[in-house]
């Protein structure tokens, strides 16, 4: 019994008179609440994705495209080293970024969630992590250029501190710069969920374990890590979604030297090669789907909400 819609449905059910038909009418009311959202997602998400799969099988010539089904585009992808390379690079950078984000962000999340007692300080720290987000993503990516260049901020500081003799070339316009950029921008997506899960851990659990003589390492492995797992899963999903679809960061920070699948999609669409772009799109979808399904096996997300 939740809204006027259900209310009206219930009134029409009076004619029926049995508890069972009342329950049925209540269910109908629920579906009326769900309909707008479901229809929106089916029309604006599922349909476009299906369209993408469909188009990946279309025949594409240099100047036109038609809907005759063929496997040409797929063959072209998997037989061209450049594209396979790009697939490999995408997966590589994805794993590296994810790993780095975990290594860098997890301790921060544990610190905020577990070691900071004051709720206000906790919230403030989290807000502090989110604030950079409000500067446009693109501008933030661009800001790394003057940081990482040969006469960029990092090199200037390292030179001044006497830690290096010559400016490090490899910082900009390489894979490293792309990784650094992506890590910095997406690490918050790991810190947030993990900090949230960790802060929900009952302190008395840890105290009880201490009383029973458990070492810090043991407490971490048996209590903190497992209980923070849903946060790690959510964070990993978020990060993976962002990283797999990336093209702006590689474009800005590697001078188009690093070509991820996302970049390929952009360039192909730029020259109206829709079918080929769709092939890349489907591959990315498969990567994402496999990851999400695997991660959701580990943790039942619905229960955590």
């Amino acid at each position, binding site marked *: 019994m939740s809204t006027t819609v259900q209310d009206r449905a219930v009134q029409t059910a009076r004619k029926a008179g049995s508890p069972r038909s009342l329950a049925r009418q209540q269910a109908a009311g629920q579906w009326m609440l769900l309909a707008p*959202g479901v229809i929106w997602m089916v029309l604006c998400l599922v349909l*476009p994705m299906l369209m993408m799969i469909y188009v990946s099988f279309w025949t594409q010539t240099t100047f036109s495209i038609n809907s005759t089904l063929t496997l040409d585009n797929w063959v072209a992808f998997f037989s061209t080293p450049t594209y396979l390379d790009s697939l490999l690079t995408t997966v590589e950078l994805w794993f590296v970024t994810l790993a780095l984000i975990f290594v860098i962000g997890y301790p921060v999340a544990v610190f905020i969630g577990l070691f900071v007692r004051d709720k206000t300080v906790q919230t403030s720290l989290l807000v502090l992590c989110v604030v950079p987000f409000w500067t446009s993503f693109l501008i933030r990516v661009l800001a790394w250029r003057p940081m990482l260049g040969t006469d960029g901020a990092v090199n200037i500081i390292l030179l001044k501190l006497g830690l290096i003799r010559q400016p490090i070339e490899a910082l900009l316009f390489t894979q490293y710069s792309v990784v650094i950029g992506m890590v910095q921008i997406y690490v918050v997506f790991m810190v947030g969920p993990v900090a949230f899960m960790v802060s929900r851990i009952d302190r008395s659990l840890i105290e009880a374990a201490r009383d029973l003589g458990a070492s810090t390492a043991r407490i971490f492995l048996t209590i903190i890590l497992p209980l923070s797992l849903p946060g790690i899963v959510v964070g990993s999903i978020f990060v993976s979604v962002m990283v797999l679809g990336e093209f702006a960061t590689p474009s800005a920070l590697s001078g188009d030297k690093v070509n991820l699948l996302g970049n390929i999609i952009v360039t192909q669409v730029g020259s109206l090669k829709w079918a080929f772009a769709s092939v890349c799109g489907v591959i990315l979808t498969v990567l994402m789907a496999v990851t999400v399904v695997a991660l959701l096996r580990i943790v039942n997300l619905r229960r955590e909400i």
Partner: protein
Amino acid sequence: MERQPVLRGLLTGWTGLFLVFLYSPMVVLAILSFQSGPEGGPQFPIEHWSIYWYRQLFNLVPASSVAPLPLGSALIRSLTLALTTMVVSTVLGTITAQAFRRHFRGSGVVFYLVVLGMMVPGVLVGLGMALTANYIGLDRNWCSTVFLVHVVYTYPFAFLVMLAIFNRFDRSVEEAAWSLGVSPITTFRRITFPLIFPGVLSSMLFAFTLSYDEFPRTLFASGGDLTLPLAIYGTFSVEIHPNLFAFGVLTTLFSFALLAVYATLMTLSVRRARRVAVQEEIA
């Protein structure tokens, strides 16, 4: 755990370094925005400090070889888009979460269908929308196709926030209102909504933020008229100038102002809602 001073010290240090890492580009950005112009470039060293580029943003300097950022109308479009997306996705998120309060068959399918919207990389959604629009002959436009994909992206977030709020909501106050003869809609309006309002506010803030800076989906789904991120991307491959950084600084300050507004609203509404019926504050 808190009583481990060494561990605590290490983690505090790590977090400190982390924040430095997080904020360093912003600091660099801010410093470089004060680069002299119009010859100064977006890299070190600073020739001499000036607010030239800030003034250039508002067209307060004589014309030079550096074109002003084409931001005016793009900004308005982004704001409009973000506001409408915020409203629509929060409404959708709330009614969907409301339906989830009572179990129904197929709830798992619906749940993952909605959540799918935030699990698909932006490029793909944008690409798919562009393909579909071409196929059915719909023009790609910032207020049609882009709006649709923005909602696809923000609706799941709003849904999850409201779901979490409702899961912690004690329904006995609603039942009490019914027993007094108050209809379910009036109950929702006068009892439920005021109590879930902090969640609705968070959800709206989330949705606005996500939509305002949304880039990959928008890139493919838009027509000729650009949103703000698109306009900025346009200047990417062409030369970058410090006016972009000045713009970045201004937007950050604007965001801080928004945050202050949000914090005030939140404190006011939380004081009203008390913490009896809603047991967790989501900031």
